[in-house]
């Protein structure tokens, strides 16, 4: 009896000992700060010093890695240029979802790290808002890059990211605009719906051949699709600009849910389920289950055709109005281990030569300019940008259509209202 009791005490003692060992090692670690960040010494007014500091560094660029052609574009264009011009090695880290990077940075902060793993993130929208909320981004650099002169920071679509003020916490990479995709082998351009009202007519005349992406966190394309309908139903996008307006929302949201509930019966699978991601919708479209997909790329269906995600006869088009356009960015975490190299890369991205390369569908990226081509004064560069814009090919939406329908995004509050409202009023009904 005594022996077993003693053994039990041994057990207990062992457990407590182990636990305290672990806790002690955690505690001692927080007490000693890890390597001090070199970031404090960077002087953005002296760009040469930053290029010198970056020499020989490796830049860890975390970005969504689901597109083979985008990955190749990044390696071939930025990777090579970084090595040749600045002796910087690009380590592209592919992630399945940018929110993985957000979680990584949150954990680093919680563990008290001052030097982390991430130098640069391809980011926009909700992930930017999260990192801004947690104060995890390096500030005061976006507008100080040499090539920032080409960026039109007065454009609200640039200085607001999903309605959230950018405040020099990120620098643009490219632009995007909501478009739809159809198959020119099956439909004539003249038969396409050019508004949400017409889309409903089309859907009910062709039951089961229309669907859209379920709005929600991680599926901003769906949220945007609904938001644009809100613009049309309420009679125009202008009234939604500016600060969040609860009254306006209360006035129009019932009409919005009415539209989507009316539409539901005519949708693919009668709206009992919706595709969750853009790829699911591409796949439904490519296999002829639905007639339309969507894209945000300025090259339209071009890059998707190149990746064999949609048939070669796919073409992009827009409604006559209310197609939201925006920018996407790169941001530097405050814990970046190689901030100098990250700054050089963010600056390189805005290089007009590389900007001209990024929109061409054959290079695999296909998103629009992050810079404003009219701000490029060098005639040779300006001509290059202009001619690239002319070479997007048939799968792209004509530039005049894009310009005519372009609207900018609205206050961030509407985002979650739409997502929650759609969930409660359309999906779960």
């Amino acid at each position, binding site marked *: 009896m005594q022996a077993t009791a003693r053994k039990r005490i041994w057990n207990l003692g062992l457990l407590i000992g182990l636990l305290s060992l*672990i806790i002690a090692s955690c505690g001692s670690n927080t007490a000693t700060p890890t390597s001090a960040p070199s970031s404090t010494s960077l002087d953005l007014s002296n760009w040469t010093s930053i290029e010198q500091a970056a020499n020989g560094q490796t830049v860890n660029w975390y970005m969504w890695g689901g*597109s083979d052609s985008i990955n190749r574009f990044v390696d071939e264009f930025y990777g090579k240029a970084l090595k040749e011009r600045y002796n910087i090695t690009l380590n592209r880290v*592919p*992630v399945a979802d940018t929110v993985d990077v957000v979680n990584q940075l949150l*954990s680093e902060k*919680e*563990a008290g790290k001052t030097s982390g793993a991430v130098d640069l993130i391809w980011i926009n929208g909700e992930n930017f808002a999260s990192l801004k909320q947690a104060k995890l981004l390096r500030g005061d650099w976006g507008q100080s890059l040499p090539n920032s002169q080409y960026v039109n920071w007065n454009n609200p679509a640039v200085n607001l990211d999903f309605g959230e003020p950018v405040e020099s916490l990120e620098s643009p990479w490219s632009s995007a605009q909501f478009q739809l995709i159809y198959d020119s082998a099956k439909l004539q351009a003249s038969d396409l719906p050019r508004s949400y009202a017409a889309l409903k007519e089309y859907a009910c005349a062709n039951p089961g051949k229309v669907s859209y992406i379920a709005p929600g966190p991680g599926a901003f394309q769906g949220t945007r699709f609904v938001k644009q309908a809100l613009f049309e139903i309420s009679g125009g996008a202008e009234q939604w600009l500016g600060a969040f307006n609860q009254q306006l929302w209360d006035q129009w949201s019932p009409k919005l849910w009415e539209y989507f509930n009316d539409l539901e019966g005519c949708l693919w699978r009668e709206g009992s389920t919706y595709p969750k991601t853009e*790829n*699911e919708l591409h796949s439904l479209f490519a*296999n002829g289950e639905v007639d339309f997909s969507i894209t945000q790329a300025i090259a339209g269906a071009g890059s998707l055709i190149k990746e064999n995600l949609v048939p070669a006869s796919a073409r992009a088009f827009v409604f006559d109005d209310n197609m939201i356009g925006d920018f996407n960015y790169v941001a530097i975490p405050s814990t970046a281990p190689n901030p100098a190299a990250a700054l050089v890369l963010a600056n390189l991205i805005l290089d007009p030569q590389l900007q001209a390369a990024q929109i061409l569908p054959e290079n695999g990226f296909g998103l629009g300019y992050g810079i404003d081509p009219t701000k490029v004064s060098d005639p040779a560069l300006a001509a290059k940008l202009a001619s690239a814009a002319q070479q997007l090919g048939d799968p792209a939406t004509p530039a005049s259509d894009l310009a005519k329908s372009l609207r900018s995004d609205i206050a961030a509050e509407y985002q979650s209202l739409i997502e929650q409202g759609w969930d409660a009023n359309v999906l779960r009904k």
Partner: protein
Amino acid sequence: MSYRKLVLLLAFLLIVPIAIFLVYAFAQGWFFPALWPERWDSELFLRQLRDPQVRRGFEQSLVVATGVSGLALLLGYPAARVLELQQFRGRGLIYGLFFLPTVVPSVATGIGLNIVFLRLDLAGTLFGVMLVHLIPVLPYVVLTLGSSLAHYDRNYEHQAAVLGASPWLVFWRVSLPLLLPSLVVAGVLAFLISWSQYVLSLLIGGGKIITLPMLLFSAASGGNYSLIASLSLIFIAPLLLLLGLVARYLGSPATGATPRP
């Protein structure tokens, strides 16, 4: 169902996904209702084989999984011996402790693990990733070795010891040969579980360590089935090879193999 038919059915179920991936890896723009791809291209698949990132992912996966199976055997064998060959109170409790990680979902512990590893300065290192893989791996290694030890006759060891063999010699000449099939199987299971880990590698590797599942999952998020299929094949091939090599052990009763659902 006859035995033969059942084996064939299971073999068929195994071959089907591999065949689908083989076709998709080389097919181009293959959509409904085409029964067979019209255009073929090996460029994408071959490029994956040459791609520096895929190679790095393969190498790091290999290093991690090999390291993990080594570590798991090193730690799991003595633990299994104590658990199976000693009689003591609290044995069930310890088994429960080893069992716990197999039933608590990784979403519940992943983020906490990341913070612990960051604090210990182990995040982003190969050793850290190996260490964290031990959590899902060790239970199966201990259970496998444990159930094999349950049928193990310790008298052989006693006899060798009585005849004057040192503990090391006893292990080397008696225990090891007797338990070899079980150790091999446990090592292979450890390799398998480590090779397939995604969430833990992502969290602890923090992007500094890149393993094949991370490349596979990021490709899956893009919906390009040729890419997904190519990477899936590169991912599955070594496992099939490994399991094929130890098939004769896997089929024998004494190994106590306790696989993962």
